[in-house]
Each structure stands twice: as structure tokens, then as C-alpha cells.
């Protein structure tokens, strides 16, 4: 897994609630059997005015100029500002794959859907839950200030605004440790292999029909 320590990155405000994973990466791109190459199709139906197909070259596709990612001032953004319930809907990990491939490393929102939130950590993306008021402030400042950059520091669990003001965020100890070190979760779990086997043996006794 990709490690995350800290970044100072340009923020981009996506001002919509309940952004679902169908919007993040439409279904036609889920036909790929790879984990990479989804970035050009991130928010495909909002970003372009024509229909996107898998493996399409996006360099000359007609852009929806109104869509925030297409505005020159947000080019190269690494921090996505979002509204409540970001990532709802399908469990497709293609959504964080697309977000990562595009170049975002952090998403800040008042709330995330559960499966999407988990999927982010598996891909080196840090999802930060902040209060609705805090997110509102970030949206306002970001929209009114070109080149609005946020510093996101995972060891201290702090986001620092250009003004120098900062706020802290929660992250579970395990997720933090894995993200900081880019640890292979499967390898870590397999360190508990004896425990899993012991559980399995006892489970086989209590519910033998699950093992026939």
C-alpha cells in the first residue's frame, strides 16, 4: 500500500452532497481488469460533454467548462473538498483508484459512506471527516482564494489553512499506522495465522455445517 505522511496541496471544492461512486467513476470503466488508468475518467459524466468509453483517449474530448475540475485554477489539486455522504452507493474500489490516479491524496468532507471510507485507506488516500462548519469555511476560502493550499499532516492529525489556523481530525490508530508505513495489510493479518486457524477449529465444532 502507498504510504501517506504529509502533503501541502492545492484544494478543489466539489460542492455537491451525496456524491455517489457511479458519479465518481461510471460503470463502463468497471470493465477493466486493472487497478490503474482510471484518472482520466474520474467524474466522467460531469467532466466531459460526450460519452466516455473504456480506453478512450481523453486529450481531445469536449470538456464541461463549468465543472470544477476543468477550471485552470484547480489544475494539479491534491485535496478534494466535498460535502456530506461522499462516496455513497456501490462498493467499487475503482472510485478511490480513479481519485488516486487523478492525483488527489486527501478528501475532506463532513461525512463519508462506510465502504468508500475504508477503500480510501487501502489506496493511500486519507479521508478526513471535519465538521460541516469547518468544511463550509474551507469551501468559502477555497472558492474566494486562488492557489488555496492546505497542509495535511497525518502524524499530528492536523490540517493547516493558509491563514495559519488549523484543525485536528480523527483517524483510527491502526489505519494511521498502516497508512504512515504503507503496510501490506494481508501480510500483517497473516502474522495472526495461528489465531485464525484456532478460531476456525473452534468454529468447526460449534457450527460444523459451515464446513461440510
Amino acid at each position, binding site marked *: 500500500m502507498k504510504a501517506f505522511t504529509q502533503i501541502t496541496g492545492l484544494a478543489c471544492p466539489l460542492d455537491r452532497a451525496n456524491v455517489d461512486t457511479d458519479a465518481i467513476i461510471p460503470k463502463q470503466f468497471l470493465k477493466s481488469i486493472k487497478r490503474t488508468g482510471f484518472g482520466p475518467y474520474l467524474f466522467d459524466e460531469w467532466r466531459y460533454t460526450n460519452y466516455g468509453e473504456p480506453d478512450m483517449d481523453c486529450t481531445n474530448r469536449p470538456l464541461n467548462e463549468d465543472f470544477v475540475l476543468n477550471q485552470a485554477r484547480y489544475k494539479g489539486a491534491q485535496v478534494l473538498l466535498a460535502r456530506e455522504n461522499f462516496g455513497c452507493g456501490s462498493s467499487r*474500489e475503482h472510485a478511490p483508484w480513479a481519485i488516486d490516479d487523478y492525483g488527489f491524496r486527501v478528501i475532506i468532507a463532513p461525512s463519508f459512506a462506510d465502504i468508500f471510507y*475504508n477503500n480510501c485507506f487501502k489506496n493511500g488516500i486519507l479521508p478526513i471527516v471535519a465538521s460541516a462548519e469547518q468544511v463550509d469555511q474551507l469551501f468559502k476560502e477555497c472558492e474566494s482564494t486562488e492557489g488555496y493550499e492546505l497542509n495535511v499532516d497525518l502524524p499530528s492529525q492536523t490540517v493547516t489553512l493558509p491563514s495559519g489556523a488549523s484543525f485536528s481530525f480523527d483517524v483510527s490508530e491502526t489505519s494511521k499506522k498502516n497508512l504512515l508505513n504503507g503496510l501490506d495489510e494481508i501480510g500483517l493479518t497473516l502474522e495472526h495465522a495461528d*489465531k485464525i486457524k484456532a478460531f*476456525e477449529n473452534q468454529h468447526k465444532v460449534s457450527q460444523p455445517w459451515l464446513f461440510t
Partner: protein
Amino acid sequence: MAGKTLYDKLWDSHLVHQDADGTSLIYIDRHLVHEVTSPQAFEGLRLAGRKPWRNNTIVANPDHNTPTQNWDKDIEDPVSKLQVDTLDKNMKEFGSLVYFPFKDKNQGIIHVIGPEHGTTLPGMTVVCGDSHTSTHGAFGALAHGIGTSEVEHVLATQTLIAKKSKSMLVKVNGKLGAGVTAKDVALAVIGVTGTAGGTGYAIEFAGDVISDLSMEGRMTICNMAIEAGARAGIMAPDEKTAAYLKGRQYAPKAEQWEQAVAYWNTLKSDTDADFDAVIELDGADIQPQVTWGTSPEQVLPIGAVVPNPADETDPTKRTSIENALQYMGLEANTPIEEIKLDKVFIGSCTNSRIEDLRAAAEVAKGKKVASNIDVAMVVPGSGIVKRQAEEEGLDRIFTEAGFEWREPGCSMCLAMNADRLSAGERCASTSNRNFEGRQGPGGRTHLVSPAMAAAAAVAGHFVDVRNV
């Protein structure tokens, strides 16, 4: 000390390891696999030189990409075909308990075939790289969707890294009125909770309305728990659960059956269990539901009018209503019954089981699909559902009324195959998501029950099925 909820019992009986911060390893009994979210996981195993921990927990089949007609032509889209072929290859290489390849007589939607073969049982943990895995909670299993990295983790370790959710009780009391179905209950609940109301929770559904439902109806409700934001929906198993499972291929047999049923009878929330949240609804208040917007929470009873954003005081919600009305091509205050349709889709892991098809056929019998409906299609959830429906003559009722009778699969629920809406087309759909572009770019989806969908196909617009 308060008693345990059903969710507590399922969690505790699968807990392998717990870190100080609550991060846990949960043992997984059943792993459902389909072609879309698994190729990268198997590739990950291959690259790391790992093998599945217990391949006889895997139940698999392709469903998202498979066509629903012209099976003699195989899969015409080469990208879809590669994904389905990749599942074939992975199943051959890594092995499974059950695998139905494309065109197998038992192939179908993974959430339909699992229960059909008795591979979903009370007391199990069930995962799948698919958010609608919550469906299996109808059997008293802890079942939820996972991402592809987690699919790989479960394959390699038979466990999932998880944190315990909070618990919510949704109690639906009383009785449903005639013409009101499980789908209407699911939509009405989401109308109350919102699409994020269940985030962070496992929802237990209980109450007389739930007890009165068939297993098919219960699956419809648990299926849509995720649309309320809850990864898992669960229901306590009862006599109906056992009756449904008895004799199915992978259900316990002989003396193990009695032992299993005795255990399953303990799978219910203790009377003194505490829930973190409780919502109660009266079944008699639930009307047939129709979504009007681009989120399942944007739902109203059939007799209502499309909302006016000017009446909404919360600015974020007002913007959501405005965006939804614009995308859906609807004017504020339009009566739902005046919304005209172009297509009708009866199918999906929410509503493609035999009981759903019976309910739709009962409405369609002896009638004709309205002339303004371009396509009305019925897509059974599995080969078994299809054959059962054909034995009962439901296929003929549909085709005589002008519906298309298709082969099983996910179909136009998410439009990964050729079944989709064109931009601007409006569809009454028995599926689970009305998101922008879900059924095709620019397509407009209204979620309804099978009976409401059939009634809308006949009328050409939404209509109260209770008056048909």
C-alpha cells in the same frame, strides 16, 4: 448489563482478534464473487504468490456484464467478455464451492443464486465485492459489501479487517395495506433515514410487518439497507427462514439440520438489548412509493407532487432538489401520477425473485403495455427463477402484454451490458439506485415496486396500483 443485539451476537461469534483501538479481524464464512470487483484481487494473490485460505467458501458467477438476450451470440462487447473470461480463468486456477459460468442453467445475479442454493445461512458472515451483499442479512447473516482490496484480503486470510458498527433498530409495526410491498417499505424507510442516516450502523429490521413478509420480501428490504447508508441490514431468522432453506443443496442435512436450527433460534436480539438508534414506522401509513430525484431518499408516496425547492430552507438540500429536478427534467409541483415514462425495467438483485415476477404478472395479466413505452423488460434474477416463472406461465403473461422476457443478469440496474437508457429517457425501475447516469448516461430512473412498475407500463405513466 443490557442484553445483546443480533448484530452483537453475529459479531462476537466471528471475532478472531481485536486491537486496542477496536480494529478487529472478523472470520468470513461465505465469499460471493462476481466478475467486476474480483479480477484485481486474484491478480494481487497471483503477484504475491498467495492462495485462497479456504476456496470452498467461494460462490461465484458472472452477472454484471452478461447480456440478457441473444445468448447464441455469446458476449459481443470484447471488454465485457475479457472480464467474464477472466473470472472463468480465476475460478479454474483458484477453485470454489460453486461456480456457474455464463449461460449455465443456474447462473444469475449473485445475490439471488446464493440464497437459492442454500449457501447463505443464518449466523454466517457473508461478504462480496458488491454493496448489495446486505441482501443476505434477511437470513440472519452478517452480510455486507467490501472493496476489491478487501476481496483480496478475505481470499488470502479468510478474515476481514473491520470495526464494529453502531446498531439501529428499524421496527415496522402493524400490517401493510393491499398493494403495498417490501419495496415500498424499503423506500419509505430510506425516506425517513435519508441515504446517510444508516452510515456507521448495522440496521436490524423487525416488527410485525417484517415477520409477515416472505423471504423474498425480506431480501428486498435488506438489499436496500445500503441505500440508507448502512453496510449491513439484518433480520432475525424464524420458521420462514428455516422453511426456505430446508432441502436446498448447501443447507445442512440430516442431524446437522436440527443442530443448525437450534442454533439459529438463538439468533435474535435479547429483549433487553440496547440499540444506538431506534426508528419506528407503522405499516398502515406506508403507501406505494416512487422516487422522483437522483437519490433514493428523494422518494414520495404515489399521490404526492414533485417537491418545490423554494419550500426547502436548508441550502444544501435546496441545491440537491434543484439539481435533481433539472437532471430528471421535472417541474416542481408536478403530480407523480402525471409523470410519463419511456421504459420499464423489472429485475435486479432487489426485485427479480419469483414473488416479484408474480406480483408484476398479476398486474399485467390480460393488459397491454402502453404505446408510449418503447421497451418494458422483465429480467429474472436467475436461471432457477426463470424456469419457475415459465412453469407458472408468467413469461406468457408478460410477452402477451408486450413485455420482453429476458435471460437472467444484473441488466439495466446498472447498465454495464447492452441494456440501458439513452439520454433523457425516463424509466420506472424495480432496481435500487436512481443516481445520475446509473441506467445509462442522461437516463432518468424512478424506483418503484414490481407491481407499480407493471402498472406504470400498462398506463404509460405512474399510477396507484391499488386503483388498478
